[in-house]
């Protein structure tokens, strides 16, 4: 008998006026100790399927039919008590967002031990011993300190390790991993994958690995199921699907995954004018003062940054989170003023496009209002002229004219990011910063936005500083690359040279983690 068998699973959301089918007729079998991948874009129903298996969808407004059998027991029809006995002990789940999935007001030790408290009769000492063992298991050095720490003191990677430790502490038969690496840096991603493999091999825990990244699933799982709009369109051997996909959708998904490929570099004119010159930039953040009447100390977060951007150039800035990428962007834009060194703009109104288009647009204003705002603030144009400018800009970013009266929440993620790009271009800046502009988007949408940005550079001659943690995206897009580590630029040069022949150890490590 299979460990988990999903048969004819239908999930319907009833809260809208008409019921919405999220998952339709899903079949999935997991044998004990298997690693299975569930792949699809956001909204394809992969997370909902996992939540249904974990028993987290028992809500009034959700209708689930079909069968989810764990060791022959139907999880959809068993009593809440029976379900709770399985949750955390037989089935565990780890989530995409390690930052928010831990309780901020409880210590790590308390949270790791929770499943033991609920499912076993161990004494507090035994529980602590098990928790320490679990923390060592997930390769957290300094486990004693982490046991007593609160989540906010831990990095994203450490938190995800804690999540895995907590999920594995009762040695469950099945671990549901919902995009566990998406929110993490590339170097950490690789470690996390290795950790999941180790758990699978050491304890024989079967893993249902949910991801939008086909390449990642291929490297980890023996089998995979591809979901499109709640339906499984392709299922079978992971390697086979990856190398010879049968369905159009799978092919699209594969094609959209950014690869280490690029158009042959169009040589820039070396005499192009410089739009931004940064020289010897050091930026500071105030440090907490230790004593009452002590002068506030400062912490240097950027060290001697020097680079320039020419007209029409796309420069990639790569590095892990916390390395100072965003501080650099904020300093250039004048949002962070505590710096020494020189930032010389040869253009007015430098603009920025943020990562999270959803929360960086005012939800109470229409697209039209948002796009007109820069014109209202910085130009003398009449309302009629402003409308014309908006029409023109919508055309440039390939948004339909009818969307101008919509509110941001009525748009899809890709459309929102187009609106953000349009808003940043309204004043025809010569220089634009794009801070992780596609990392919150699905691969297929990501591809479209990247293509749009390239087209805009060709048509308007704007220069872009592209901040990204995805080395593949940077390779596709950029003429030159800056590699940043701990506030310093450790390597800079033409994209091809850096990728073919990295000089610095850190660059090599980054490229290796990204699978180059």
């Amino acid at each position, binding site marked *: 008998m299979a460990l988990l068998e999903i048969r004819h699973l239908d999930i319907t959301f009833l809260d809208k006026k008409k019921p919405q089918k999220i998952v339709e007729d899903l079949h999935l079998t997991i044998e004990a100790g298997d690693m299975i991948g569930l792949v699809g874009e956001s909204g394809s129903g992969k997370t909902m399927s996992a939540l249904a298996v974990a028993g*987290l969808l028992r809500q009034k407004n959700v209708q689930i039919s079909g069968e989810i059998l764990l060791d022959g027991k139907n999880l959809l029809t068993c009593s809440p008590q029976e379900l709770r006995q399985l*949750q955390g002990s037989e089935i565990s*789940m780890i989530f995409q967002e390690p930052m928010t999935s831990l*309780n901020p007001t409880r210590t790590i030790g308390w949270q790791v031990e929770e499943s033991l408290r609920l499912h076993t009769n161990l004494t507090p000492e035994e529980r602590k011993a098990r928790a320490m063992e679990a923390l060592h298991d997930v390769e957290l050095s300094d486990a004693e300190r982490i046991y007593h720490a609160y989540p906010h003191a831990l990095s994203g990677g450490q938190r995800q390790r804690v999540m895995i430790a907590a999920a594995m502490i009762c040695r469950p038969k099945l671990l549901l991993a919902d995009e566990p690496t998406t929110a993490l840096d590339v170097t950490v991603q690789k470690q996390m994958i290795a950790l999941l493999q180790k758990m699978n091999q050491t304890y024989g825990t079967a893993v249902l690995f949910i991801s939008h990244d086909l390449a990642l699933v291929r490297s980890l799982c023996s089998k995979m199921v591809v979901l499109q709009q709640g339906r499984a369109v392709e299922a079978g051997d992971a390697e086979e699907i990856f190398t010879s996909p049968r369905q159009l959708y799978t092919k699209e998904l594969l094609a959209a995954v950014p690869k280490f490929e690029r158009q042959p570099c169009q040589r820039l004119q070396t005499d192009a004018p410089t739009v931004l010159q940064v020289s010897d930039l050091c930026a500071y953040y105030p440090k907490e003062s230790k004593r009452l009447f002590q002068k506030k100390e400062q912490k240097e977060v950027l060290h001697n940054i020097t680079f320039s951007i020419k007209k029409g150039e796309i420069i990639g800035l790569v590095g892990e989170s916390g390395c100072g990428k965003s501080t650099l962007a904020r300093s250039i834009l004048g949002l962070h003023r505590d710096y020494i060194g020189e930032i010389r703009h040869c253009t007015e109104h430098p603009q920025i496009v943020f990562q999270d288009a959803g929360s960086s647009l005012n939800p109470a204003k229409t697209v039209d209002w948002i796009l007109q705002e820069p014109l209202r603030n910085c130009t003398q144009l009449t309302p009629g002229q402003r409308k014309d400018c908006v029409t023109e800009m919508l055309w440039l970013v390939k948004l339909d004219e009818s969307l101008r009266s919509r509110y941001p929440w009525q748009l899809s993620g890709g459309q929102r990011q187009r609106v953000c790009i349009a808003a940043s271009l309204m004043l025809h800046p010569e220089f634009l910063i794009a801070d992780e502009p596609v990392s919150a988007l699905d691969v297929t949408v990501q591809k479209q936005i990247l293509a749009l940005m390239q087209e805009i550079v060709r048509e308007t001659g704007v220069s872009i500083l592209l901040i990204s943690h995805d080395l593949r995206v940077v390779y596709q897009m950029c003429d030159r690359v800056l590699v940043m580590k701990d506030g310093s630029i450790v390597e800079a040069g033409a994209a091809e040279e850096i990728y073919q022949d990295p000089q610095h150890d850190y660059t090599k490590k980054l490229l290796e983690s990204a699978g180059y």
Partner: protein
Amino acid sequence: MKYAGKKLLSMLATLLGVSFLVFFAFDVIPGDPALAQLGTNATPERLEALREEMGLNAPFFQRYFQWIAAFFTGDFGTSYSYHIPVGDMILEKLPISVFMTLMAFVMVLVISIPLGILSAKHEGGKLDTVICTVNQVLMSVPPFFSGMLITLLFGIVLRWFTPGGFVSLEQDAGAFFGYLFFPALAIALPKAAMAVKMLRSSLVTELGKDYPRTAYSRGNTKNQVLRNHVLKNALIPVLTFFGMALTDILTGSIIVEQVFGIPGLGRILLTSIMNRDYPVVEAIIMFMAIIVIVVNFLVDLLYRRLDPQINME
């Protein structure tokens, strides 16, 4: 340690600021304490003599510094109208007001926390609707009016207490608390209703976050998630409200004391204002300021206990 020192300094600075404002305000507002004491048909000579005697003719800053220096050594001056030390007057009345305030505050906690949890637990259900509706009504009734309704219902119809029949603590402790219960209830109800509303919405917000989902995935029941995970987080924003409610209740008890005929601080404050008995008024305001500052400090400490993200050092 550094935190405590910093906090203490800022508390002292606040108190000094308040003291200056209070003293300054009573110096510039129209009304002459000497005139108030002697009546309008006093001769100018007698008035002048009394002013001299009361020290009203000295320069402003000299009087301020004398007063504040005496205040910090525990000498709050002498009442103009009763000619007894202000300290004695206040100490006699303070326990009544403080008891009533604390009773009301405990009622706010005892009512709001269980009801807030209950309401959030059954969000959107019948019980939640009932609680929210009653809340809405209670919130919109000011304490002096609910005080009158309570007097009517419990005092006159049900005869559970005798309106106006205040019993002091020394006479009969049981009767004292029994009498204070109803005015305390009148003050507590609207505050409790607001607290229920805040706690409910805070709990609902927290329940929608990611970490309760993690808790459910480990096999917690809804009650366990609420009690062990969500409540502590949800209380953090509500704590500020509880602090404000406590100081609000203290200062707001003045009117309710009038409705129920309680000889607390409120009563002497009002009569002293009428009589231009400035030493009494100033001392009472200073006492209230001290209580407000101390309560805020305690709330701050509690914050640090609840929220590990606020650094102790």
